[in-house]
């Protein structure tokens, strides 16, 4: 308790302020970021489950085995079955090739179906969200089926041998937005499928087996592990992560940025803590000498300081945890208005992370600074010149770096991120020591020719060069880290805005026949809509691989072996695509007999195709041979047409082709889709507007979160600068007070401080630009997958911001020297 008493008295005496604030800030930054990141992640998982309408799905072309369902029942796992297929629906003389989905009554297991009794409505008050599907004998349909079949709600439609009554309009399905079905949706009850008599053995249908965990999450995990062993080649397991790749990538980048911001916060607060601790320890040496002169043994002194550090760590961390919690709540309350999803509560991990940050920061930065104190000789009470030397700065630095590296790794789980930040900081520190020293010397020599203020100030900087360098490392480190964050944030947000511009394409028009192309174009143009350009494609089927005909087993294993594929051609690698294996083609001779083909890398893997494999295609009965020459990744974010199979120009143009495009259709002109479908029933329309709206909402909310986070980190930066400024303050105030006593003017004293600090700030800003540019290059390349770009503005703003900020802080701090009588200043030191 004595240690706690001493700590509280020291706190009251004001010597602990900087250490405590650094600690609280480090912990609160990390806690709020972790809380946010975890809650967003949990929300995302829940959201993805909703997109899947379940926690886990098995897609298959065979009905679900009864054994799976029985086992699920034993494990308390909730299940539901669903079958989807394309079939004609009729009403009197009208017909439409609809996307039929038959669901059991407990569908969806996750998420909700939005329905309405008013077609084409966007009015939320007319839309109802329910967690069940249509009753037997009823059907819920896409609004556009009504004009397509000339029906109204309450009319009957025929499907196979059964008659279904249209009772609701589907506004949104949780697992809608699928690419595989192109017709209007007809949702019916599972029980009516048999009566319709349209699903026969061998029919082209897709079964889905939906699973959701009950109360026991472990039982669910156990069941899914068991299930994985039961899967055959017909079955494909779909997890929530795969369900919504585009939202996941946006959120993932957002989360990475939060991590980056948090990590930078930790490093900044760590530097502040290191500087503050150094300063604090210097103020404790006399006290320790006194304690030892009273006969307190070194071991007791060490124990007292260790206990105080522990109290400080626990207390500071607890305050930090609550501040961090408050901050994350504040962030959430600010973005709540734009929040499309409720954020679930976080688990224990963010709290552990926060607490660990506090204790580790203290262990890495404060303890090494205090370590030498017990060795202070008691004789120091009589002789000021006898002082124990602190632990060497190299060792202290090593502890600090180890603590930061450990924290960064644990926290970000990313070696690249940790390395980039450490490298950026190390480079800045190294540059500071080498270049900074040269600059200080240059300043001192050049300063001789300038006015008295400049001469004195630049001389002072050189005289105190080791302190100046430590301060410069602090300043430049803080500025560099802040610049890294602003640069990454800006480029991320720009990229998102570009991707999800207001008029980003939200509809795809596919399967437009050559003779329909002009008509469809006219219809689109009449509405003053712009397309992303028309892409030609031919539809072909794979018939053989390496001379071997496609087997039934292969057909069962993957959809692409049994259906027609969209084949297109291009001379240039499409924007956003990246070659993963092989080479992109140059000029290809149109007389060549084996066509080079480029495959999307995931489909290549799923189909078991590799470079050099020969694929035989059949296009409208005509056979041609091709060879896989490269694989590539696609960019799904930019909402432009993407192709799994691409050929060079001049090889496929002869075959019967269709066209496709993507375009933005504003909500008010949505009925164009119906006009189009009524006039050109074979054209397929893929609607992505709802998904895009959702992504846009999430992006805007993540962006807002990032803005606020940036502010929090900026405050960390200011704290570091404050700590660095206060480092030399007592010496400066003493000198200023002496100058003041000797009759120096206020102008001279403040002028010297202004020149000293702004010079330090400008130099630090310049050095920071070096470190920041290096780290940003690494981050852009490895972590955010953003294009490389230099940032000339940081070379300008770095020195200016550094000079202004540090100068202002320094002068603000030094004002005491000119407003208070010199004797009072000297007495207070």
């Amino acid at each position, binding site marked *: 308790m*004595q240690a706690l*008493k001493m700590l509280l*008295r*020291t706190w*009251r*005496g*004001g*010597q602990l302020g900087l250490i405590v604030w650094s600690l609280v800030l480090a912990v609160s930054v990390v806690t709020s970021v972790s809380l946010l990141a975890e809650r967003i992640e949990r929300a995302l998982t829940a959201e993805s489950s909703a997109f899947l309408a379940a926690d886990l799905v098995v897609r298959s072309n065979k009905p679900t085995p009864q054994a799976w369902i029985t086992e699920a029942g034993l494990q308390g796992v909730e299940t539901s079955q669903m079958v989807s297929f394309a079939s004609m629906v009729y009403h009197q003389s009208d017909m439409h090739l609809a996307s039929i989905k038959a669901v059991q009554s407990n569908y969806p297991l996750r998420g909700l179906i939005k329905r309405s009794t008013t077609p084409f409505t966007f009015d939320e008050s007319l839309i109802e969200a329910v967690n069940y599907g249509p009753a037997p004998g009823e059907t819920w349909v896409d609004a556009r089926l009504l004009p397509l079949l000339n029906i109204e709600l309450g009319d009957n439609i025929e499907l196979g041998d059964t008659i279904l009554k249209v009772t609701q309009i589907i506004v949104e399905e949780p697992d809608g937005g699928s690419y595989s079905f192109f017709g209007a949706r007809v949702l019916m009850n599972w029980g009516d499928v048999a009566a319709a008599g349209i699903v026969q053995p061998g029919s082209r249908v897709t079964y889905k087996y939906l699973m959701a965990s009950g109360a026991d999450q472990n039982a669910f995990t156990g069941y899914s592990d068991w299930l994985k062993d039961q899967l055959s080649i017909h079955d494909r397991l779909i997890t929530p992560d795969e369900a919504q790749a585009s939202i996941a990538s946006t959120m993932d980048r957002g989360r990475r940025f939060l991590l980056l911001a948090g990590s930078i916060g930790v490093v900044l607060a760590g530097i502040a803590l290191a500087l503050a601790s150094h300063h604090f320890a210097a103020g404790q040496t*006399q*006290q320790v000498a*006194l*304690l*030892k*002169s*009273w*006969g*307190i*043994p*070194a071991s*007791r002194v060490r124990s007292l300081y260790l206990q105080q550090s522990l109290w400080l760590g626990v207390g500071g961390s607890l305050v930090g945890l609550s501040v961090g919690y408050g901050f994350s709540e504040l962030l959430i309350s600010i973005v709540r208005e734009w929040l499309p999803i409720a954020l679930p509560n976080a688990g224990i991990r963010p709290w552990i992370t926060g607490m660990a940050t506090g204790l580790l920061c203290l262990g890495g930065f404060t303890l090494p600074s205090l370590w030498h104190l017990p060795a202070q*000789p*008691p*004789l120091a*009470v*009589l*002789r000021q010149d006898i002082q124990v030397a602190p632990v060497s700065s190299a060792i202290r630095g090593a502890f600090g770096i180890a603590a930061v590296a450990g924290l960064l790794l644990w926290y970000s789980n990313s070696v690249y991120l940790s390395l980039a930040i450490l490298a950026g900081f190390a480079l800045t520190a190294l540059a500071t020591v080498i270049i900074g020293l040269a600059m200080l010397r240059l300043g001192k020599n050049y300063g001789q020719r300038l006015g008295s203020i400049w001469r004195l100030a630049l001389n002072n900087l050189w005289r105190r060069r080791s302190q100046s360098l430590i301060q410069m490392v602090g300043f430049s480190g803080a500025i560099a880290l802040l610049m890294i964050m602003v640069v990454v944030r800006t480029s991320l947000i720009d990229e998102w805005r570009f991707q999800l511009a207001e008029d980003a394409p939200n509809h795809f028009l596919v399967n437009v026949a050559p003779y329909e192309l002009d008509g469809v174009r006219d219809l689109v143009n009449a509405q003053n809509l712009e397309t992303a350009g028309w892409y030609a494609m031919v539809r072909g089927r794979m018939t053989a691989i390496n001379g071997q005909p496609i087997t039934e087993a292969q057909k069962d294993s993957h959809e692409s072996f049994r259906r027609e594929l969209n084949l297109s051609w291009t001379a240039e690698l499409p924007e956003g695509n990246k070659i993963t294996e092989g080479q992109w083609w140059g000029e290809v001779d149109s007389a060549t007999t084996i066509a080079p083909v480029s495959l999307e890398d995931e489909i290549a893997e799923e189909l078991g195709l590799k470079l050099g494999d020969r694929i035989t295609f059949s296009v409208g009965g005509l056979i041609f041979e091709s060879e896989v020459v490269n694989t590539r990744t696609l960019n799904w974010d930019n909402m432009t047409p993407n192709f799994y199979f691409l050929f060079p120009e001049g090889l496929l143009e002869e075959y019967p082709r269709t066209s496709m495009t993507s375009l933005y259709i504003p909500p008010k002109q949505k009925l164009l889709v119906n006009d189009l479908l009524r006039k050109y029933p074979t054209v397929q329309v893929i609607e992505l507007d709802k998904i895009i709206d959702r992504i846009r909402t999430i992006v805007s909310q993540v962006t807002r979160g990032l803005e606020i986070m940036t502010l929090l980190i900026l405050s960390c930066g200011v704290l570091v600068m404050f700590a660095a400024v206060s480092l030399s303050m007592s010496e400066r105030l003493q000198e200023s007070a002496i100058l003041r006593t000797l009759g120096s003017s206020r102008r001279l004293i403040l002028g010297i401080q202004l020149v000293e600090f702004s010079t330090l700030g400008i130099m630090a800003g310049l050095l920071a630009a070096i470190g920041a540019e290096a780290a940003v290059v690494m981050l852009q390349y490895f972590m955010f997958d953003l294009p490389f770009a230099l940032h000339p503005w940081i070379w300008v703003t770095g020195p200016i911001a550094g000079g202004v900020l540090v100068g202002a802080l320094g002068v603000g701090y030094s004002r005491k020297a000119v407003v208070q009588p010199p004797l009072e200043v000297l*007495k*207070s030191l």
Partner: protein
Amino acid sequence: MIEVSNISKQVSTTEGTLNILHEINLSLASGESLAIVGPSGSGKSTLLGILAGLDLPTAGSVSLNGEDITAMDEEGRATVRAGHVGFVFQSFHLLPGLTALENVALPLELQGDKDALKTAAYYLKRVGLEHRTTHYPRQLSGGEQQRVAVARAFACRPTILFADEPTGNLDTGTGEKINDLLFDLNKEEGTTLVLVTHEHNLAARCGQRLVLAAGRQVDQTAPKKKAVVKKTVAKRAAVKKASVKKTVIPKAKVKAKTKAKPKTVAKAKAKPKATPKPKAAPKPTAAPKSKAQGSKR
């Protein structure tokens, strides 16, 4: 109480070995006072540091209370310091973040004294600062700060008090008052006093004087009167009793003290002979108000 035999102190510098102290001998009985005088750089503070067990001589030995502290390790010397030694410094060495009361209480608290604050308040009252207990050092004048330091030194009931130029940072008037206080308390508590000073007045009030010049002992005035240990101890106990009557002091403290001392109370009323009691000295238990207000800033 203090036996010093043939101590020397040498330090190595770039220009060779420097003799700071050369074969110093002295002997001081319990309750006596010694002034170490000499010009700046004569080795006074070095000698004080060695006597107090803060530093070690290059040769020779120092015994405090019969224990040879030069043969001990730092832990051993720390134990001796904790049990017997108190300090008053030229630059006060008060902790800036602590109030006057807390500054006095700190060493007691570190010794595990449960009544530290009560004892501290008692000693602050004895130095006439009972109205300044919650003030921080920066709010006190130099003289007041040194009185707090004196209270702190006596609060631990040391058997030997070392004072390093206790009035060196104070003006003559304030310095005189501190000296009075130091000698009064010394007399009342029966402490052995060793002080380093430049001031002849102060040195003259001590029973012994050791004059140093360039590290050599050039003069040592023999004690005017042989101090008798038994007498001194008896005197201390008597003063203690007297103060119990006058002021409320922590029970535990009184018990501890009285238990430790022989119960020769009867002779205790005898007037102290070792040093004349200065008339001007403020009564420690009831400092005049005018003085207190005068020092308030």
